[in-house]
């Protein structure tokens, strides 16, 4: 035999046997794995359906209460026709729910049948535990009942005339477990539903090609053995949960059926992928066997050395053409291949560095998992959010370690089976640190030759949502200001008229008349109201901000006068003007607004501290600049309020920062800072929690 033939024969035998063995194991292990995934998916669907079902009970209670408190209902209990019409007109009859309005002596005043199954007879109605004489009619109640062959949810709520607290009757909802209900469950839980009582099939969401409903043959055995059921040429896995009636007795069950077609497709895909991998493996086996063939052929040995170099990443190889036979040609081809491989590899390395940079610096957290949900890799952003290094969770089940809720797991498998990405715009997630954050969550599938992985992209949007909310709030306040300004303008127009008429009245009144002093008082008060309006206008009007020379102590007095009796009414204000009158350059309205903001801030801090005696002190003084070349007017506003945390003090002048929770806008202090700095001034703050806060403004003195 020639070398070629010997090699060929031995290699084919080795490779063939190993590929066969590997294929067998691969198919076995993959099928085991997917069976498990498919079953898990089914259990998840059942849990979801169960949750939807029980939420529905709470929902039905609330809806019954809502109907029983409608004035249309309470007001028309003596007039059933009117009652019916008003409820129908307003659309208060609910989908697939029969509504009965019943008088205290059990007469059915209204019976609105919205589903085909109403079979509750008046006699059966009277026997319900809700309406027994020993039970307080004021109690609302809900329960599942078996009525003849049907099962239904009944929800009752008393109708009470609240003006004289008299009992007027009941609202009763009946919801039968019919096909529409099965469809409703299917829509919310995302899987087919079959509802059975102990001895009857009640409802199904299955429909054949012509839209006829049908019941697949589901047995308890099928569920317990996790066996597949063929329905309409598709395979389904079934799980179920029991329904307990009002007396906690089992009356039936709800089965969920999950189509495993997608899982089967994924399985086939998985096997195919594995075969590809195996093919590569067998090629490697052959390549390794070449080493064995070394003794048979020296040139082949040289070639195999080169191949080994390439495998090690050494592409700079020289193969000298040995002979002009096939091996010689092979050497030449090999040489060319090595060069082209080298070029490709460099390209790939560049790409790798490029993508790694992007992923590592991405602000979104990225978690890459394999198809069983085990973490393969996470980026630094994810490490930060979940406060765990890659080492801590690598290879572990992502749902367990990061405590993702089951719904994400369901999505995860949806992504694997369907291949379509899923998005959640604002998903509240419970971090391992028991913190709740809102995330934008995107899951997508990545198919590589070595397997399927799923990338989870998680963006923390908690702060952004909060900011958006605060911004809207600030805009609303702005609008309010405009409305106030318009209103005040109208108000002052009216006041001008009133003051004019009072002046005339004063002239016309006899000097000795007793009313004169009253008229003067009215004039005085009206003028004050007018001035108040003017002050409000000067605050809310948008003007050009010309700078002028301002006397600071006078300005402080006027601001305090405006808000002293309103905003600061529970607070005592201490003033200290150490240098008498001092002047700065600025805009009077803008500076007033800034002071106004600081006073409100101080007041809020005091209110929050819940103090019996709040004190705000204002000190106006002069001081030299750092280089002693300038003189500054210094204004301290100190409160004994709650104080600001050290970690927040840096942020206090940022737009949208507020320690006041939802009450404040946070826009005030940033504006104040802008204003002061626009006149070459400075504003700073010192604060201690529980002691108080001092704001210090420095403005260049205007001689």
């Amino acid at each position, binding site marked *: 035999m020639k070398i070629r033939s010997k090699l060929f024969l031995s290699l084919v035998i080795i490779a063939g046997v190993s590929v066969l063995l590997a294929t067998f194991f691969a198919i076995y292990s993959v099928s085991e794995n997917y069976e498990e995934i498919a079953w898990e998916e089914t259990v998840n669907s059942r849990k979801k359906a169960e*949750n939807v079902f*029980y*939420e*529905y*009970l*709470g*929902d039905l*209670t*609330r809806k019954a*209460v809502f109907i029983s408190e409608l004035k249309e209902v309470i007001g028309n209990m003596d007039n059933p026709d009117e009652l019916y019409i008003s409820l129908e007109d307003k659309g208060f009859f609910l989908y697939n729910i029969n509504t009965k309005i019943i008088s205290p002596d059990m007469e059915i005043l209204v019976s609105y049948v919205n589903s085909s199954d109403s079979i509750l007879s008046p006699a059966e109605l009277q026997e319900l535990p809700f309406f027994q004489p020993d039970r*307080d009619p*004021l*109690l*609302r*109640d*809900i*329960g*599942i009942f078996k009525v003849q062959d049907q099962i239904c949810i009944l929800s009752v709520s*008393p109708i*009470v005339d*609240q*003006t*004289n*607290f008299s009992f007027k009757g009941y609202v009763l909802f009946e919801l039968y477990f019919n096909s529409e209900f099965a469809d409703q469950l299917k829509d919310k839980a995302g899987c087919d539903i079959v509802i059975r009582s102990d001895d009857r099939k009640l409802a199904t969401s299955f429909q054949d090609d012509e839209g006829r409903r049908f019941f697949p043959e589901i047995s308890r055995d099928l569920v317990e053995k996790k066996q597949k059921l063929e329905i309409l040429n598709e395979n389904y896995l079934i799980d179920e949960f029991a329904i*307990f009636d009002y007396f906690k007795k089992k009356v039936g069950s709800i089965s969920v059926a999950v189509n495993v077609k997608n899982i089967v497709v994924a399985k086939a895909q998985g096997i195919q992928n594995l075969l590809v991998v195996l093919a590569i493996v067998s090629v490697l086996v052959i390549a390794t066997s070449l080493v064995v063939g070394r003794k048979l052929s020296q040139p082949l040995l040289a070639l195999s050395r080169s191949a080994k170099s390439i495998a090690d990443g050494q592409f700079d190889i020289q193969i000298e053409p040995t002979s002009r036979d096939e091996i010689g040609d092979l050497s030449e081809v090999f040489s060319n291949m090595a060069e082209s491989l080298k070029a490709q590899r460099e390209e790939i390395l560049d790409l790798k560095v490029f993508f790694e940079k992007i992923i590592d610096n991405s602000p979104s957290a990225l978690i890459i998992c*394999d198809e069983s949900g*085990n973490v*393969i*890799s996470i980026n630094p952003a994810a490490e930060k959010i979940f406060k765990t290094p890659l080492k801590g969770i*690598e*290879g572990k089940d992502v749902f367990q370690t990061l*405590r993702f*809720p*089951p719904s994400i797991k369901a999505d995860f498998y949806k992504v694997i089976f369907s291949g379509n990405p899923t998005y959640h715009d604002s998903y*509240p997630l*419970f971090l391992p*640190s*028991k*913190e*709740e954050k809102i995330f934008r969550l995107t899951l997508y599938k990545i198919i590589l030759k*070595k*397997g399927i992985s799923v990338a989870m992209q998680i963006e923390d949007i908690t702060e952004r949502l909060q900011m958006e909310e605060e911004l809207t709030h600030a805009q609303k306040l702005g609008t309010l200001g405009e409305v106030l300004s318009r209103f005040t303008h109208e108000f002052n127009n009216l006041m001008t008229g009133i003051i004019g008429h009072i002046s005339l009245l004063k002239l016309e009144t006899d000097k000795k008349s007793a009313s004169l002093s009253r008229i003067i008082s009215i004039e005085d008060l009206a003028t004050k109201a007018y001035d108040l309006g003017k002050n409000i206008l000067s605050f809310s009007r948008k003007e050009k901000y010309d700078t002028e020379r301002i006397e600071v102590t006078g300005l402080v007095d006027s601001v305090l006068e405006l808000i002293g009796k309103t905003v600061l009414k529970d607070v005592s204000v201490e003033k200290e003007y150490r240098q008498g009158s001092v002047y700065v350059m600025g805009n009077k309205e803008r500076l007033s607004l800034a002071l106004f903001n600081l006073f409100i801030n101080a007041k809020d801090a005091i*209110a929050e501290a*819940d103090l019996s005696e709040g004190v705000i002190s204002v000190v106006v003084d002069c001081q030299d600049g750092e280089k002693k070349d300038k003189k500054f007017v210094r204004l301290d506003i100190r409160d004994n309020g709650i104080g600001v945390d050290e970690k927040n003090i840096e942020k206090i002048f940022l737009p949208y920062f507020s320690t006041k929770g939802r009450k404040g806008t946070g826009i005030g202090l940033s504006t104040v800072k802008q204003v002061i700095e626009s006149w070459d001034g400075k504003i700073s703050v010192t604060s201690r929690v529980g002691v108080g806060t001092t704001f210090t403004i420095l403005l260049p003195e205007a001689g």
Partner: protein
Amino acid sequence: MDRITKHYLMIVFMSLALATGVNASPEKTVTWGSVGEPETLDPGQAWDSASVFFTTNLFDTLVRLDSETSEIVPALAVSWRVGKNGTQWVFQLRKGIRFHDGTGFNADSVVFSFQRQMEKDFPYRYYDFPLFDEIFKNLVSVEAIDTHTVVFRLDEPFYPFLATLTSSPSAIVSPAAVKKYGKTFPQNPVGTGPFRFKSWEKNKRIVMEANADYWMGRPGFDHFYRLTIDKHDQLHRLFREQEIDIIDSYSISRTAGLRNLRWATIKSIPILSLTFISFNLENRFLMRKNVRKAICSAWDPRFLKYVFQDFVDPLNSIIPKGMPGVKVKRTGSKFDMKGAQDFLQKENIKKPIRLKFLLLSDSSLERQLVSLFSKKLKQIGIELQIVSVSRGDYKQRVGEGDYDLTMYGWIADYPDPQSIISPLFNEQLLKMGFPNLAQYKDTEMEAQIEILSSEMDRAKRIQRVSDIIRRIDDLALCIPLYQNTSVIIYNNRKIENIRVTPIDTIHLFDIKKK
């Protein structure tokens, strides 16, 4: 490829580790969800339920209420005797107990724990203790006789003294820890209780872990997480998804859905508490007895059923049902609109009566209740204006007397009628913004209450309590509304044996995690 290989290797190692470590039992964690946060973890300051919940489990008292029988049983004290006509109580202390910080418990720790609340100039007193003086007003001194014997001296006999020692302020704190933490002790509590404090992240969670050396034995689980989740729907979602084992907040419609869940148990236990409507006796209408009687008669207790369903027990006297040492026959006014009108006519008031009803803004069910009441009152010519204010404003307005009627309630600090009656007439509490009946000045009533506290004869006490209740009813000083129930919803597949004492404390020690 690298990471994948590593991953598979790790699985191999992990399965090896599992195979060798099967015997190590897993750590058990109980997760509890609640909507509010405690105000403090210092038992001397704890007056809100959330704070008492923690101090009960972090600290021990000398005696405690058995959660099964509601009787007073030994805790840090093993035995006691009372002498000198009830003015001297001697306690023998348990030996070999250590605080969570490792320091030993002895008679000095007991003396320290009481003195820091009693003596205004005690060197390690860092803040005030508003409850102590109310509960222990008769206490004169606490002294150590030897390392394991303490004596409490009272200025006059005080029947419920033993019962007061079950209250939160009587818990024993670690003197070393108080000295070490000073003002921050409420955030770093150290006691001898079945659980030790681990961490507190404000508005997020509080963590405790089991005290393995607890004198009654090791608790039924290792870690305790109490999560603060301010949204009810989220709390219920987490419970439904079985992320949380126990929740203590409910809405009536949500429990309807839960009632059908087999694994969820809804426990509703009546506790010694009183919610009542109080009158501002300085109001020119309400200072007249017949106006108050008219208002009392217009109250229909059926409002409670409609609004609160089965979640509260209506009361017709100020003393809740189940209070030891009380036998009260039906007293108080009956719902009677005609009677209400008759009372008003006696006063011959011409003008319409307008009154302000002060309510906390976050209590929507109470608002519904008062709104129903206001419609009844309108029928007899009394107009009620409901004023809703924030918690801070509420206290201020009550303290300043800026209200006509308001609704308030509290839970007994210890199981004795004194714990309801005494704060009802405490002027200091009213000034602090807790509505009560202290505006009523009557020497005879004061004398009656005074005698009650020192009456040591059980039968006579029962008679005296009845006398006081009857007197309050005759004068129509308030409308007793209802007694609260403590509602606990838990996952019965994971948790068993959860109990609530009549003073609404829960001993986590009892809970078993499956």
